[in-house]
């Protein structure tokens, strides 16, 4: 017994080092696997509070920009309203902005935004108390931002689309050919759409929108335009470079979308198994 204690005391630095190293590597590995990074996040009382305080100072410098975006969005909504009144067939307006009541929108403020790393996260002000849930979609008036990943009482962490772990279903606006949205970690304004079948009519400048296969985002939310594209190794799928509509380096306010029937659909799908 005495010898064991002596051994522990003599090697206490090494043991301490190894223990903490295993702990930090565990946290690192966990952060690299999707749906598991739950222990350490910036969506807590202290970090959220500090980010919120700092953002309160910074946000004044962007007010003009945010106002412009709001006016632009109002213009679009007014146009849509006018078009809806005039047209005879209401069914023609099934564009991005006319969602049925399956989805509920909430507003949140971005208080921290990363875009220079491989795995980027966004912290927003708004949590359980304002009705946010994990796996809610996050968008702005211009395009998609990411998916809510962890929620605390007053703050939430969002996995940005600029994260190597995200895979979002997206499609061409003109045809219904779809693929997965991934990020290669290079340019924060450029994102990649992979696994688009060769038959799809891909053209430079075409718009990419969210697809209907996702329970997180409504179909038809704008993402970006095609910059260039190439066939992959075995010449059967396209890899497409997309220029985002959103400026990911300056986000401001976001909408958080809740899909009210998500649980029901998931339950239905799990019956098959």
């Amino acid at each position, binding site marked *: 017994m005495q010898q064991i204690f002596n051994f522990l005391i003599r090697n*206490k*630095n090494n043991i*301490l*080092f190894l223990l*903490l*190293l295993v*702990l*930090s*590597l*565990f*946290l*690192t*590995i*966990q*952060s*690299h696997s999707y749906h598991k*990074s739950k222990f*350490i*996040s*910036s969506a*807590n009382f202290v*970090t959220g509070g*500090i*980010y919120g305080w*700092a953002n309160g100072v910074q946000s004044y410098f962007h007010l003009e920009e945010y106002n412009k975006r709001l006016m632009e969005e109002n213009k679009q909504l007014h146009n849509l309203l006018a078009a809806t009144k005039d047209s005879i067939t209401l069914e023609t307006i099934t564009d991005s902005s006319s969602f049925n009541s399956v989805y509920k929108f909430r507003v949140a403020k971005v208080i*921290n935004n*990363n*875009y*220079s*790393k*491989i*795995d980027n*996260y966004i*912290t927003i002000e708004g949590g359980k108390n304002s009705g946010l849930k994990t796996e809610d979609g996050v968008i702005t008036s211009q395009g998609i931002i990411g998916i809510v990943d962890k929620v605390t009482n007053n703050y939430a*962490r969002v996995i940005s689309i600029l994260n190597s772990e995200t895979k979002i279903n997206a499609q061409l606006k003109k045809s219904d050919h779809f693929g997965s949205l991934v990020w290669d*970690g290079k*340019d*924060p304004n450029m994102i990649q759409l992979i696994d688009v079948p060769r038959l799809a009519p891909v053209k430079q400048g075409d718009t990419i929108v969210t697809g209907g296969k996702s329970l997180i985002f409504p179909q038809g939310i704008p993402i970006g335009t095609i910059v260039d594209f190439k066939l992959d190794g075995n010449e059967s799928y396209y890899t497409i470079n997309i220029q985002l509509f959103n400026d990911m*380096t300056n986000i401001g306010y976001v909408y958080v979308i809740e899909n009210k029937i998500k649980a029901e659909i998931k339950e239905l799908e799990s019956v098959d198994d």
Partner: protein
Amino acid sequence: MTNTIITNTLRFIFLILLQVLLLNNINFLGYVNPYLYVIFLVLYPFNTPQSLFIIVSFLLGLTIDTFEDSGGINAAACLVIAYIRPTILRFSFGVSYDYQTVKLSSTPYGARLGYVMILVFLHHLILFTLEMFDFSHSFLILKKTLFSGIFSILLILIGLSLFKPKRR
């Protein structure tokens, strides 16, 4: 003694806030950020028990990680630095370290520069390797280590010369 504790606690808090609120948002050329908080590991008193230093360094890295949502990469990098700092010190300053007489402000400039450079580049290499977590990105890892490292070293050297302890 109490003076040292207070100085290091304040330095700990100040460096974390500076890092997460200001320096992480620089993104020079899109990805180059300085990690000035490493100066805490550079300046931490040489003659304190090493187990305490290991714990404090781990906490420093973990706090930065919590703010950055980066898992445990900063914690791991700081931990390794804390563990091998005595070796680096012996390598940089030679015999005077062994007799616990070395003071950072009174060391020759070349040795001090070497000490800071080894510490920073090692820290950044571990940090970015764990961040990418993929050896197919090794060129990007080296590029980030080099550029962010130079930026950090410059800021740390400026910091060291600005906040020199007063002569008594």
